[in-house]
């Protein structure tokens, strides 16, 4: 059976066996990956995988099976198992599937890998780093090509597909000279092609330069309340608690700090946050939401005002709140009107925060953690790299303490972030 036929077979079988509603997705993934360690390419991988997800709803009771086989015997067993799971479950009217929408097929990205060019670009990068950053070592990294054929069907007649191909580059590195060494740092980018040299992508040159400088990082013995400039490399991890409070689990448990804040101001009016899953500006797209809707670009926070939660169909039905039009992927923060250099000049005392190693914020958004790969700023100047420094704040409260946002931003292929300066952060050393 071909891909669509497999899903048709599953949905037809579910119907014949008395299942009220069913949802089936199939992913066929092909990966080609070149890995490197100790300064040279070490491994070439080709992997293929299948992911078939079957969801059966009977009398509002849900059963789900995931497998990576599509032969008829495996399908028949999985269908039977999903029905058994549904029968064993508890009824919940929130278990539902998306309503009928016209069929569409989406295609995006690069459809075939160029193995030779992958090797060329990676080897070129490794040779460049060897000479330009001689004390920097790679802990791990690789350049990959991934193509995923995704199919979605449900018993309401929804029928979508997405064929997506992209390159991914990831590198993790540290610097060492004699017995002095830096913290590790890393970066990641998704790409539509390999036209650009890898050394020129994202903020990589700056990160490698900083890594070498950080072998002389000084322990910090001050404690003060000051400003942090969060780099684009770090902003995603700082924003992730916000995403949790917008999503299903926190709303269903009632723990979301934002549950009563829709259309209210929750951040500085300088702050606009978007999710653009179907924007061609990104190397990767998500045209179909997991619950079976055509995905849309949307503003999540507009000039500080919360415009949407990120609830799925299930979260929406559980809470009685609107389903989000976007799945929250491909996030960006709008750039501001201050040049990065001026943001630094305007900082009296603070930290340039390049990486944050912290505990999960508690349910009130309070967090603390270590500022990694970071620099001390005083009287408008970057003074020196620092280590063993802890910052404490509130993940949601800090949105109101945004002071400046940079004109510059960095495109990672799946998100795009500027530098963001925040005040009132507790910064403490040993």
């Amino acid at each position, binding site marked *: 059976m071909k891909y669509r036929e497999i899903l048709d077979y599953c949905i037809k079988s579910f119907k014949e066996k008395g299942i009220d509603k069913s949802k089936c997705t199939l992913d066929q993934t092909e990966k080609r990956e070149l890995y490197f360690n100790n300064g040279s390419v070490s491994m070439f991988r*080709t992997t293929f995988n299948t*992911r078939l997800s079957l969801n059966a709803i009977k009398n509002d009771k849900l059963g*789900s099976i995931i497998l990576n086989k599509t032969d008829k015997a495996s399908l028949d067993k999985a269908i039977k198992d999903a029905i058994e799971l549904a029968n064993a479950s508890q009824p919940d009217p929130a278990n539902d599937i998306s309503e009928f929408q016209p069929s569409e097929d989406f295609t995006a990205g690069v459809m075939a890998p160029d193995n030779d060019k992958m090797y060329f670009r990676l080897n070129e990068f490794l040779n460049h780093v060897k000479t330009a950053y001689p004390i920097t070592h790679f802990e791990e990294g690789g350049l990959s090509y991934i193509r995923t054929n995704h199919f979605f069907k449900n018993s309401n007649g929804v029928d979508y597909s997405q064929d997506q191909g992209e390159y991914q580059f990831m590198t993790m590195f540290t610097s060492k000279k004699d017995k002095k*060494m830096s913290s590790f740092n890393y970066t990641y980018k998704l790409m539509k092609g390999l036209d650009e040299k890898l050394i020129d992508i994202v903020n990589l040159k700056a990160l490698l330069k900083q890594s070498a400088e950080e072998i002389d990082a000084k322990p910090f013995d001050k404690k003060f309340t000051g400003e942090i400039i969060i780099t684009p490399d770090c902003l995603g991890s700082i924003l992730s608690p916000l995403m949790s409070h917008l999503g299903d689990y926190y709303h269903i448990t009632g723990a979301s700090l934002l549950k009563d804040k829709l259309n209210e101001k929750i951040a500085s009016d300088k702050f606009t946050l978007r999710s653009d899953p179907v924007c061609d500006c990104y190397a990767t797209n998500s045209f179909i939401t997991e619950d079976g809707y055509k995905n849309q670009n949307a503003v999540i926070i507009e000039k500080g005002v919360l415009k949407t939660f990120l609830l799925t169909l299930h979260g929406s039905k559980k809470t009685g709140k609107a389903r989000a039009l976007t799945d929250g992927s491909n996030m960006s923060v709008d750039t501001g009107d201050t040049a990065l250099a001026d943001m630094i000049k305007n900082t009296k005392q603070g930290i340039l925060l390049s990486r944050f190693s912290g505990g999960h914020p*508690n349910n009130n958004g309070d967090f603390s953690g270590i500022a990694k790969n970071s620099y001390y700023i005083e009287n408008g100047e970057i003074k020196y790299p620092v280590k063993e420094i802890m910052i404490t704040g509130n993940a949601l409260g800090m949105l109101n303490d945004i002071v400046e946002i940079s004109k510059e931003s960095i495109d990672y292929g799946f998100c795009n972030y500027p530098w963001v300066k925040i005040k009132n952060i507790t910064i403490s050393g040993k």
Partner: protein
Amino acid sequence: MLKIDLSKYKKEFTEYTELRVQENRSTNIVLVNGDIMDNSSSASSGISARVNKNGNWGFASNPVISDEEIEKVILSATENANFLGTKQSKGKVAFQKRPHSSQNEFYTKQDLKDQNAKIEFLKKLDDYIKSKYPDLSSRTLVLSALDMEKNMITSDGSNSYSMIPKAHIYAILNKNVNGENFEMFKVTGGSGQFEDVFKKPEDLFKEIDEAYNNLIEKTEGVYAIAGMKEVVLDAKIAGILAHEAIGHTTEADFVLSGSVAADYLNLEVASPLISLVDFAHTFRGEKCPVPVYIDDEGVKAEDKVIIENGVLKGYMHNKQTAMQLNMDVTGNARAYAFSDEPLVRMRNTVILPGKSKLADMIASIEDGYYLVQSSNGQADSTSEFMFGITLGYEIKNGKIGKAIRDTTISGIAFDVLKSVTMVSDDMDWNCSGMCGKKQPIPVGMGGPAIKCKVNIGGK
């Protein structure tokens, strides 16, 4: 089900080759306030081959398990090594040969419980929480079980079959007090299938009561005072210190890429009270939480002493790192899924118990903290670590004081271990989490309570 004879494919091997057939099976059930949010079962199986030719690795995998596909995967992995060979040559490799044969499977001998019975188990637990603690704002119960079944053969003469299971139940309790939301979680379970790990819901009531009491203490808790403090890390936290902060720096692939531990071999890195071992499968006659008898390169898994009485004694290896550093292989090469290649991974990493009593350790601190439970942890190649703390108490004049709110501790692990002045005589094991390093992998970790100095976050 994967007990197929792989030796017939050896004729396809032309270079150093590993061939593995594997299936990971998992069960997940999530109850939120009594409603089932997830009721799923998944299985992912397939074949993979890894080939080394002139120092270049080729790897290939496919989910279809058949004679034809197995031969194709071996060929594809060989071609991938050849592809790199057309670009670069690293010269012939000479891995240590330690042919070993191993069969270890831990299927339950009891009747298997169906999903209905597992849901009923969780529902009974939920009913208990709901009726006894109606003041909670939400309650979440998660059952997560994983069986890893592997069958492998290598060109240098090893073969193995294993089925290693684990099962855990996570309880997450939330309570709103004056508009603030407080959370406490409790994890129970361990090595084995559901039927062996969980007998009846009533066995877990005590753990739930303890989690609720801890939650109430936390709602009345105070902020920790930020700074360097003397603390007692409970045995439940020592494991994560052993794993995250020290263990990772002594994985030989990290050593080769510049980890701080590269400079410390045979040097004093900790108090003489500290000994740290990565156990393969057995600790003091008992099976470890994640028993590894043979690794995924076919090497017999042996215990590896990392720190002995404060002195760094060695690293954990796969075949390649052992060759590069001219050291013995240790059996630490492990892969998570059929489509993953083996990496240097820990198995059951522990700080060995000492001679002190926990009560005496707490009594010896004038102004500090007793830190009991952690959430996540991260560590650096410098051995700087960070753990989230979700349960802890003040220690004032040798006595336990108020609970503290969630916070974070950090330090340079080798410095922290040098500050250790007492190690308790008891021990706690844990295998509820997954270690992340390109791939996830189940790991065991454990240790005693230790008295040391760390940097604590707070006001």
